[in-house]
């Protein structure tokens, strides 16, 4: 920590308003803990992203030990959670989710209202870039975090670029803290 402002694709450069890079894992943890309704959005690439637990899809399940955390799987990823006998993860396609996140009166998955912090990870780089871009301009009250291993300029906060080993360690630190504080 901190990561570097290197985007996952060469031409996906930042616009005038760009994500801040987390200075440390503690800031990530603190922001997520402070949020009243955080939502973790787990993308289809999570099945290919290696972590200390195997893949990110495995690591993300640990977050559910914290009752404050809501997880939603996009694409067809929910099947991977089902394979792991995990039924607490919601499923919604990314386009449908993005459309609802920009709606301030959307009730969320539990009907209790919209989310104030949305954390993305596990997407094709450009797809996450675009969805975060949409939220930046059309859901201005919403804070977004990208936990992916490269800089996502359209998020409010991004973990930034890290080498794989370093990223795994940081993710482990974040997830461990969040699961234990549940």
């Amino acid at each position, binding site marked *: 920590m901190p990561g570097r402002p290197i985007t996952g694709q*060469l031409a996906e450069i930042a616009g005038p308003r760009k994500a801040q890079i987390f200075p440390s894992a503690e800031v990530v943890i603190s922001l997520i803990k402070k949020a009243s309704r955080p939502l973790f959005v787990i993308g289809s690439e999570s099945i290919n992203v290696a972590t200390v637990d195997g893949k990110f899809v495995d690591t993300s399940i640990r977050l559910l030990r914290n009752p404050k955390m809501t997880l939603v799987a996009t694409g067809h990823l929910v099947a991977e959670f089902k394979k792991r006998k995990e039924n607490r993860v919601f499923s919604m396609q990314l386009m449908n989710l993005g459309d609802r996140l920009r709606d301030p009166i959307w009730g969320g998955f539990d009907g209790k209202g919209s989310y104030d912090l949305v954390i993305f990870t596990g997407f094709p780089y450009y797809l996450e870039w675009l969805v975060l871009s949409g939220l930046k*301009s059309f859901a201005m009250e919403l804070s977004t975090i990208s936990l992916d291993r490269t800089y996502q300029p359209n998020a409010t906060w991004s973990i930034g670029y890290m080498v794989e080993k370093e990223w795994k360690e940081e993710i482990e630190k974040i997830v461990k803290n969040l699961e234990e504080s549940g």
Partner: protein
Amino acid sequence: MPDCDLCCLCTFGKCDLTGDKRGACGINMAGQQSRIVLIACCMGASTHTAHARHMLDHLIEEFGKDTPLDVAINTNVEAPNIRLVCGIRPKTLRDLEDALDYVETQLVQLLAATHTGQEGDNIDFESKAFHAGMLDHVAMEVADIEQIATLGMPKGVADTPTTDLGIGSLDSKKAVILCIGHNVLPSIDIIDYLMENDLFDEVEVGGICCTAHDNSRYNKRAKIIGPISWQLRFIRSGIPDLVVVDEQCLRTDIIEEAKKIGAPVIASSEKSMLGLPNRTNDDPANVVDDLVTGKVPGVLIINPRKVGEVAVKTVMKVHGNRKSFMPLTVEAISEQARKCRDCMECVRACPNNLPINDAVRAAANGDMEPLGAIYPLCVGCGRCESACPVGFSLISFFNKGAEKVIQNEKFPIRVGRGAITDVEIREVGSPIVFGEIPGLIAMVGCANFPAGGNEVAKISEEFLNRRFIVVASGCSAMNIAMTRDEEGLNLYQKFPGDFDAGGLVNVGSCVANSHISGAAIKIANIFAKRPLRGNYEEIADYIHNRVGAVGVAWGAMSQKAASIAAGCWRLGIPVVVGPHGAKYRRMLLGRKENVEDWKVFNARDGKEVYIGPVPEHLFYTAETMEEAIVMIAKLTMRPNDTNKGRAVKLSHYIDLHQKYYNTMPDDLNFFVRRLQDIPFTMRDEVTKALQEKDWVEDEIASPDPTLLDRMVRRRD
């Protein structure tokens, strides 16, 4: 989903439009995104229109204005898009001029609306984008029916001849002419010259992109090399002795690439002159001499007949005498690979972030397999090479890694058949409209795939096995051919070419997409007897509410793909794109839970009724192939489905959801109208799912649906 936060279209700018900011002209982010969409659709529609106009002028010169438009067997409604939009029934080539006059006039108006200080509202921009799409389908129809009518291409027959597709289909012992683009005229004259001079045994003609489709429709001895993404890889193979480019989707660095293998280039269109000298009026012998000796890297010849003569004479002299091309060896690649700086620029340049650096590192140790594994996933853009600070020819590396695969790249494909006949429409109209044929899936568009072209084949096969009608065109029709099963068969060998349940219909090149929209229009006209000429609103209302058609452009890349999709939206046909399609900047999404959004008039009594979210979206990006498959099945539902039809569609939606999501859908309460809609074999689990959602029978109506007040027949 803005692809850029700025507007840089006028000298006030750049203007930052992020969030609630406005530009110097007053435009906001939503308006700007839709403005760019309109510009893209105008580009796409203009490209097809210019293509159609160029061919029409030429064909009228060659065949005369009074050439009849005999374009499909067993068919009276031979130009449904033109009739619907322009209100005329074209009978001869002359009549097509009127259609293009209308399209050209409208396109100028639309493009003018994008000027600074004109249109500002995003919805009005979107409406205009739809208009551009509608015009595009007219232009495509003109382009395809004029070539069918004059060039002897198949006229709607199901069992068209089969040709070979793939790099391995070419006999590289012969002289090889590579034709790239979309405008078939120069290629036709190459083929004619070969036929007239009995030279087909000495010269191979292979095509890339839509010219390849149309070459094969003209003469099945012409080979299809592959989709748009095969340009660099095929040139780097060193096989082509001559490159002929016409227009659209060409690599603009084709001269530099051809130089690397010592192949001259002939450009044949004013729209893509590539900086080459215009030799149209020169003596062909002199032009051939200059190309063969390498005095010039290429020439521009704006005369198809002369292209034919010069191309054949040149290629026969160039073949066997090219000295500048030395294919890379494994040893050479390994040696180069050891110089890799591991900077990751190649991975970051790759649209799909393919693990190129890992593959290069393996090659440094003599392991070429990872390079070969990149090959089927690569979209052939060459951005990795452009980014590489060491200057590796990475596309050539991938080719070498996949050398054996490439040699075996030979697949049969039925050549494009053109229109769907009236007789076929009569036979399938009823089962489609009532939902018993569960859907019409159109696999169209370019080859910018997120994970290789085999996904297009997988999507197609999933629906073919379920007895949907699958139609295909352009690069997607090619990619469908390139996947074999364990027995070595591809989908063209396993499924018939009939426009019927379980049929796989290759309509042809991208201008043949007009036959797909045309089929939907003809269902309304022929089966339902709705008036056609100038009756767009009613026909689109019919299609949207009754015809379970879904467009799929899994590798959509171009502005043409945008305008083709826009033409589908205007007809009420939803379109699903792959994840790169999100770069079209916005989606057209419904919110299924908003009851008020899903009401129509019941034409029987004039009452406004709730019909559920069918179809839920008009334009949708899927993150994964599996998500796309499930969404496609869902988007085939229409309010007019009979109980039996809805049950069939629901059975596919539920079964696919269970297969790919490993769960029951959680939104069945929006789609089951009454108990008879429930698939019989799924009764228990569906009933349970409905009970959990407090579903009430008949809250969702089954009206005679229309969005048009004027279509109400009687008011109670």
